[in-house]
Each structure stands twice: as structure tokens, then as C-alpha cells.
């Protein structure tokens, strides 16, 4: 049985109660414990720094050449906190409620409440680290609004909030590297989790420079390995983002939750060629001032500036008058798709809608818009060669974030003892849809303020250094990793891994993307199985194992996506309701909104691996809502 270990007491007291009751590790004993952290994004870097400050010995691994490049760096818009600096009625409870509702009532109340509680500490911590958040003339911090909220609670640093927060966490971690408390391993890719007697005891990595397979043991393993949005091939994720570490942990016994919950972000630059390697996000903050529209008539090919006001359909404002352009992401994306499917899409491909700043520029002046979004407009112009000050942007939804992830209990521990999962890699706080500016909040909440306490509770009951790299499980795992690479190199077929990955991406996008139905999902399952066969018989990989070989790295990641993609589909098939990012066409209201089925699916799915070619085993964590009333989400 899944036990989420939610502490006793009223919602507001649960985290306090937990902290009071958790066992502590004596300061003198902390230095005897080794902890591995995989990933150096917001969650991994902040966790590494904070645990090292407490006295643990931390070994931190990243796939990039520098920990500062983790993909958190690309987050643009901002970070939420319940500071209520704007005096507009915000509170911890309101942030909690907005997040639960935004997630379409598929997240755990206690986790989300804790997230809202620590949100304010994050802003304090970041300012103390020298993060140059935007400020008002009087010198106090500025805020802006984001989707799914009617208060202004988002803190930001121009359009580079993720970069600034990550550099803050990277700085804090760098300080601990200098102090000798964090040992950093760059250009290492986690390829397996080592489990001994049911406990996570270490990892096996490939040194991406030399190709060597290396073994590292520890008393606990923390995975901060991000999401699986690149399953779609085209996404706003960085090129190296992958599911491999999480998928390996799943195959070693950690349950994987809600893999069908993927967030398709509404404001991305549309696809314009089959050579395209990634999609670029345009921050959701643009929806504060930009108005989304399409021509009223299907097939209207006039230039946007030639379409008179009366012949434009501002469909979000029309359908959702109270939230307008600031509806949550899943709603905005689905509506854009609906317009394009009805033939009203714009641009060369017809898969785009306008995001228009004409009225905002007329109202506030070009300078004011430039000040808020200058770098985003510049980025748009650089990519598309069109000037958004004079012609509307064209946008289309793209895979952006994944709410699903490894199952964790309230202490962020997975179903494997000693394996903790933080940030986007876990499933815990966003339910079926994440609100804008909440990913940064969750990554830093987990890393700075939650994990450093909860991991103590585990280590307090453990004996340091029980298992080291000489344990046979390490050699066994390293051998398997080596054999996999050798197998990939031996196929010598005639398709590249990118080519196959693109095909997988298309299957998932078409059948397990913004809208799903049973027939499509069943078809996708077969297609993925066939594609996996094709991969293992017709793949071509360049070079050898014992060298810097980016093609081989990619091939191994695609191999995992080909297994994991099927799990996404399996989960989507199980969830015969619509909720948040999972829109099941067979479950919608008369107005085509997502229709939940609380009677049968008010739960978290948690899949357990049963072996090659076997259907995974489904476990359910039933969600109890004691503090909010389950309601049909409405942004009208």
C-alpha cells in the first residue's frame, strides 16, 4: 500500500508538526553521511548547497560542462510567493487554493499547502543571495500577474528569472564546493541506480568525456533530474533533458506517477520546418499585455494588420471573461488547438494564433512594453525575423513541463528507501496542470527548505557507510550499462537516433498530446512498440564507447524514451476522465471543458515495473480533500 505519510493535525500545522517530530541527526554525525545529488537545476543545486551547509558530505553530478547550465536557467517569467506585497488579498491559503485548483484537484493538499508556506522564505533567501529582482521606483520589489491567479504574486528578474535564481543556487553550491563540502562531478550522466536490499545505495554514471563507467556509493541518493518533456522530441526543454535517470529508478523499483500529465505551454514560437531541433517558449507573462486572437472567418489569409477589429475573434476574452488571456496554460493551449483545428489558425502552416501587443502599446507606450518584455521581443525577432512591436507575434502550444514524475511521500522519499526525488522529477505538487511561475517555486522549496529537513529523518535511522562501491550490485549494474552501450553501437543499421526520436515525438504529440482518446492511444501503443523494434534493429550510432560521443549519449536516451513513451500512453489509457493537461475527448462538458470524474479517478496513479515486455502494475494513492471543495474548474 502506498503510504503518503502525511502528518497529523490541521492543514496549517502539518509541516510544523512534521518538523517537530522528525528525528534529527547530531551535527557531529552529519559529517559521517554521504549524499549523492543528481542534477544541478534549481532543486539539485539548492539541495546540494543546503545539505552541505548542514554538514553532510555531498557529491553532486551534472550532465553539462558546468552546473550553471541546467535547464532551470531558461525559465523566463517568474516565481510565485504569497508575500501579499501588493496588498491585493494574497495569502498562503490563496496561493495554496490557486495551485490546487490550477492542478485540477489532482495534487495532495498537504504538499501544496507546505509549498505555499515556504514560498515566502524563498524570496527572502534569494534577495539575501543578491538576486536582482525587478523593483519599483521606491526600491521595493515589483510583482506581476500570471495565469490562473487574480492576484499579483509573481517576482521576476526581467525575462530571466530562472537564470538569476539558478545562478543564486549555483553560487551557494559553489561556496560549498570551495569549502570542500560538495564534490562536483560534471559531464557525468546517471545511467543506473544501485539498490541493495531495497535501499538506494548509489549510482552508476558514464563519464561523458572519457566514456568510462564510474560507480559512486552513498547513504542516500537525491534525484533532481528534471522532467520528460523531450519525449515529444520537440519541446521547450534543453536538448540534453531526458528521462533516463528517472526511468532507470523506475526499473529498479521506484513507482512512477501520473506520466500522462504533460504540460503543453500555450505561448511558443510555432514549428517551421522538419529540421527543427527545439521549440522556443515566449514567457506566459506576455499574456498580461498581449491579446490572443484569430480571424473570425476560417481561411482568412489577410495580413493581421489588414483584419479589422470586428473580424477578429479574441477567443480567450470571449469565452473566459473573468480570466481573459490569463486562463491557466492547459485551457489556453486547448483553445488555441481548437481554433486551429477549425481552420482559423494563421501563418504558413495554419498552426498558430496571434498574440497581439497593439492595444498595450497604444495604451502604455512602446517604452513601457519594451521595459517589461524587451528581451523577449528581441528573441522573437531573432528567431522569426518579424518585429512584434509592429505585427502580432504568432504562437502555438508546445511540450514544456511534466507534472508526472517519480512517486514520493510527504518527505519526498520514493517507494525505494533512501531515494529522494525533488523538483520536476517528482510528481508531487502540481496535480494535472502546473500554474505559471510555480516550477521555480517548487524546485527551490524542495531544495532549500524541505529536503534538507526530511532527509535527516531518514539518515537519523541509518548507519553511515554501510555499503561501498565494492558491493557486487555496483559491478553488476556497471556491466549492464556497458553492455547497453555496446549493443547500441553494434546494430549498424541505417537510421539515426534523432530520426527515430522525431517519429516517437510525432506519435506522442498526435495521440498523447493536447487531446487523447482511447482508439488513438491504443494505436499509439502499437506504434511505439513497432518503433522500438525498428530502433533495436535499424539504428546507426557513430564512434565508439571510450570517447566523447554525443551521438551515443543521445541514442541511449532515446532508447529510454521509447520505453517510457509507452508508459505515458498506458497511464493516459487508465485515466478515463479529463483533468488539467490530460484531456480525454471522451470526457468533456457540453462547453468542451475538461470533465473530471472524481468518483473514480480522484487519485494518483503509481506504476510499478514488472519486467521487460510486462504491463506495469498499477497502484493508486487516493486523494483526500478535507480543506477545499472539489468543483468543476471555471475561469469564465
Amino acid at each position, binding site marked *: 500500500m502506498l503510504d503518503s505519510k502525511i502528518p497529523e493535525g490541521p492543514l496549517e500545522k502539518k509541516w510544523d508538526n512534521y518538523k517537530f517530530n522528525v528525528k534529527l541527526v547530531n551535527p557531529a554525525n552529519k559529517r559521517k553521511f554521504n549524499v549523492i545529488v543528481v542534477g544541478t537545476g534549481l532543486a539539485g543545486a539548492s539541495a546540494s548547497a543546503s545539505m552541505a551547509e548542514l554538514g553532510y558530505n555531498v557529491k553532486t553530478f551534472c550532465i553539462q560542462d558546468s552546473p550553471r547550465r541546467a535547464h532551470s*536557467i531558461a525559465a523566463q517569467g517568474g516565481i510565485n510567493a504569497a508575500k501579499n506585497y501588493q496588498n491585493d488579498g494574497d495569502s498562503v491559503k490563496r496561493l495554496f487554493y490557486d495551485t490546487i485548483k490550477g492542478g485540477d484537484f489532482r495534487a495532495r493538499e498537504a504538499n501544496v499547502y507546505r509549498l505555499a508556506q515556504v514560498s515566502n522564505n524563498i524570496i527572502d533567501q534569494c534577495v*539575501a543571495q543578491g538576486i536582482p529582482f525587478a523593483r519599483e521606483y521606491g*526600491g521595493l520589489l515589483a510583482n506581476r500577474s500570471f495565469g490562473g491567479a487574480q492576484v499579483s504574486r509573481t517576482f521576476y528578474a526581467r525575462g530571466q528569472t530562472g537564470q538569476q535564481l539558478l545562478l543564486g543556487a549555483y553560487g551557494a553550491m559553489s561556496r560549498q564546493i570551495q569549502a570542500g563540502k560538495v564534490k562536483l562531478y560534471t559531464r557525468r550522466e546517471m545511467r543506473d541506480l544501485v539498490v541493495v536490499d531495497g535501499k538506494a545505495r548509489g549510482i552508476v554514471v558514464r563519464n561523458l568525456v572519457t566514456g568510462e563507467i564510474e560507480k559512486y556509493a552513498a547513504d542516500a541518493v537525491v534525484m533532481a533530474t528534471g522532467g520528460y518533456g523531450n519525449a515529444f522530441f520537440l519541446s521547450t526543454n*534543453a536538448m540534453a533533458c531526458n528521462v533516463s535517470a528517472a526511468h532507470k529508478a523506475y526499473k529498479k523499483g521506484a513507482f512512477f506517477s501520473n506520466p500522462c500529465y504533460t504540460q503543453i505551454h500555450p505561448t511558443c514560437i510555432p514549428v517551421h520546418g522538419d*529540421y527543427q531541433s527545439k521549440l522556443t517558449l515566449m514567457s506566459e507573462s506576455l499574456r498580461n499585455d498581449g491579446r490572443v486572437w484569430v480571424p473570425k472567418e476560417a481561411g482568412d489569409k489577410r495580413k493581421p494588420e489588414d483584419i479589422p477589429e470586428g473580424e477578429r475573434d479574441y477567443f480567450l476574452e470571449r469565452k473566459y471573461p473573468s480570466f481573459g488571456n490569463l486562463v491557466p496554460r492547459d485551457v489556453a493551449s486547448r483553445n488555441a488547438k481548437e481554433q486551429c483545428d477549425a481552420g482559423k489558425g494563421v501563418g504558413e502552416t495554419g498552426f498558430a494564433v496571434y498574440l497581439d501587443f497593439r492595444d498595450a502599446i497604444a495604451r502604455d507606450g512602446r517604452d513601457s512594453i519594451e521595459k517589461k518584455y524587451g528581451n523577449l521581443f528581441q528573441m522573437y525577432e*531573432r528567431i522569426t525575423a518579424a518585429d512584434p512591436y509592429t505585427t502580432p507575434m504568432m504562437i502555438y502550444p508546445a511540450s514544456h513541463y511534466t507534472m508526472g514524475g517519480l512517486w514520493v511521500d510527504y518527505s519526498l522519499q520514493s517507494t525505494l528507501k533512501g531515494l529522494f526525488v525533488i523538483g520536476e522529477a517528482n510528481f508531487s505538487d502540481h496535480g494535472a496542470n502546473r500554474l505559471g511561475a510555480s516550477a521555480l517555486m517548487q524546485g527551490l522549496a524542495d531544495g532549500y527548505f524541505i529536503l534538507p529537513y526530511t532527509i535527516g529523518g531518514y539518515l537519523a535511522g541509518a548507519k553511515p557507510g554501510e555499503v561501498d562501491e565494492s558491493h557486487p550490485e555496483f559491478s553488476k549494474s556497471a556491466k549492464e550499462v556497458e553492455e547497453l552501450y555496446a549493443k547500441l553501437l553494434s546494430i549498424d543499421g541505417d537510421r539515426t537516433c*534523432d530520426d527515430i526520436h522525431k517519429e516517437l515525438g510525432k506519435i506522442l504529440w498526435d495521440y498523447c498530446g493536447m487531446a487523447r482518446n482511447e482508439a488513438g492511444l491504443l494505436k499509439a501503443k502499437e506504434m511505439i512498440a513497432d518503433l522500438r523494434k525498428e530502433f533495436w534493429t535499424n539504428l546507426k550510432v557513430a564512434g565508439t564507447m571510450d570517447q566523447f560521443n554525443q551521438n551515443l549519449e543521445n541514442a541511449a536516451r532515446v532508447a529510454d524514451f521509447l520505453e517510457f513513451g509507452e508508459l505515458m500512453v498506458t497511464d493516459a489509457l487508465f485515466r478515463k476522465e479529463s483533468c488539467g493537461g490530460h484531456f480525454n475527448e471522451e470526457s468533456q462538458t457540453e462547453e468542451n471543458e475538461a470533465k473530471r470524474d472524481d468518483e473514480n479517478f480522484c487519485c494518483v496513479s503509481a506504476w510499478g515495473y514488472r519486467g521487460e515486455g510486462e504491463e506495469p502494475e498499477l497502484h493508486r494513492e487516493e486523494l483526500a480533500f478535507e480543506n477545499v471543495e472539489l468543483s468543476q474548474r471555471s475561469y469564465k
Partner: protein
Amino acid sequence: MSANASKLINLTLKVWRQKGPDVKGGLETYEAKDISTDMSFLEMFDVVNEGLILEGKDPISFDHDCREGICGACGAVVNGRAHGPEEGTTLCQLHMRHFDDGDVVVVEPWRSKAFKIVKDLVVDRSALDKIIQAGGYISVNTGGAPDANAIPIAQEVSDLAMDAASCIGCGACVASCPNASAMLFVGAKVSQLKLLPQGDIESAKRAVTMVETMDSLGFGNCTNEGECEVECPKGISITNIARLNRSYFKARSLFKKGVN
């Protein structure tokens, strides 16, 4: 509507190929055919590499990740200029519409004593991380920070700090400097933190330890060439170097024997 509709062009690439740090490298020629002008420079490389893989040849190695100009992973010297001919652009955001059909494009890695070549266009920039480790942060532990609005900071000051903080650590400044100096990189971090009241407290020590670490890693010093500012994809100003120098000299007069 896009100002110039996309078209297909052909290019001749001359790319630096080097198997490892201690092996001799050289320029190799590749034909890049039917390149859409809407592609990014790295997508053009992807197309060339797909061809090389299928021919059983070793694809060109190059660092890249976010492909939206913020992670700082990518970078190469293109026709003699770091990140190519466009100003204020990383290589991943350089689009092929800035090239003409028939162009010969020479691509080389960052060259600096402090950046060893890993393979082809991939270099080891861990020296930049080491400089940050020496003091590029404010020494506060997690927890116990005062309320974020406790210390107001003038908007102009905060904006200047943000300008400096935009550095992506790509190393273009080092690659374009005749002295292979990292002064713009160091100056940006020292300035950001010195400008803010939270960071000012440690500014003297920070300037000295970061400069000393930079020197020890084999970077050159600044002789006001100004190339770094021109090639910086984030437009970081050399005013930050002036601020660093001021902090450094002031600190040196405070700590004559060096700071430990």
C-alpha cells in the same frame, strides 16, 4: 509576417576537428547543402552531422543545450568572430538568413590557455566555475534571511546589477580577447554583487580572491582592447571591468599581503 521568406542555400564549412586535448587538430571541409535560412547555426550542424553519421563518419562535436541563448553552453568562433557575425547573439540564436548562398564558413573552438579542447569545438570551461567558487557569491546560509523588502534598493542600482548578472558564462569574452582575459566575466559578477547592499559587505575580499584565482588559471589581464564587450552575446559593458578594478585596488590597499 516574416520580412524575408525562407530559402535554401549551400555552404562550404571548414570546421576544426580534433580528437582530444593532446592530439593535433586541423580544419576539415564539409559541404552543407539545402540549408534553410530559417535554421539556426546549430540546426545546420545537426543536418551535417546526420549525414556524417549515416556515412559512418564521426559527427562534429559541439556543446549546446538550451538552444535559446541562455544556458551559455554553445559557442564557436565563426569566420573569426565569437558566436558569429551578429552582435548580441549566441551561436544557437544565429540564424542562417545571415549567410549567403556559396559562403565559406570557418568554424573554430574557443582558444585560450585556460580552456583545454575536449574534442572538436568542445572546450573545458571549468576554469570559469573555479573563479566563481573562489568568491562569486554572497556568503549566506539557507534560512534566517530577513524579509525581502527589509532593504529597499534603488531601481537604477538594481537594474545595473541585473545588467551585470545577465552573464551566461559562455566564454566568448575570453575567446575574443587578445590576452584571453576573463576580466569581463569576473567584472560582471563582482559588479553585480558590489552594487547590491547585500553583496557589498564582502566586496573587497571577493574582488581579490576572484582575480587571484583568474590569474592562477592562466587567463591574461585586461589591456582595454574592448573586444569582449563587442562579442558578449548579452551586451555586458566593460564599465564592469572598471568597477572591478576599483574594488580590486581598494581591496589591495586594505589587505597588503593578500587575502586569505
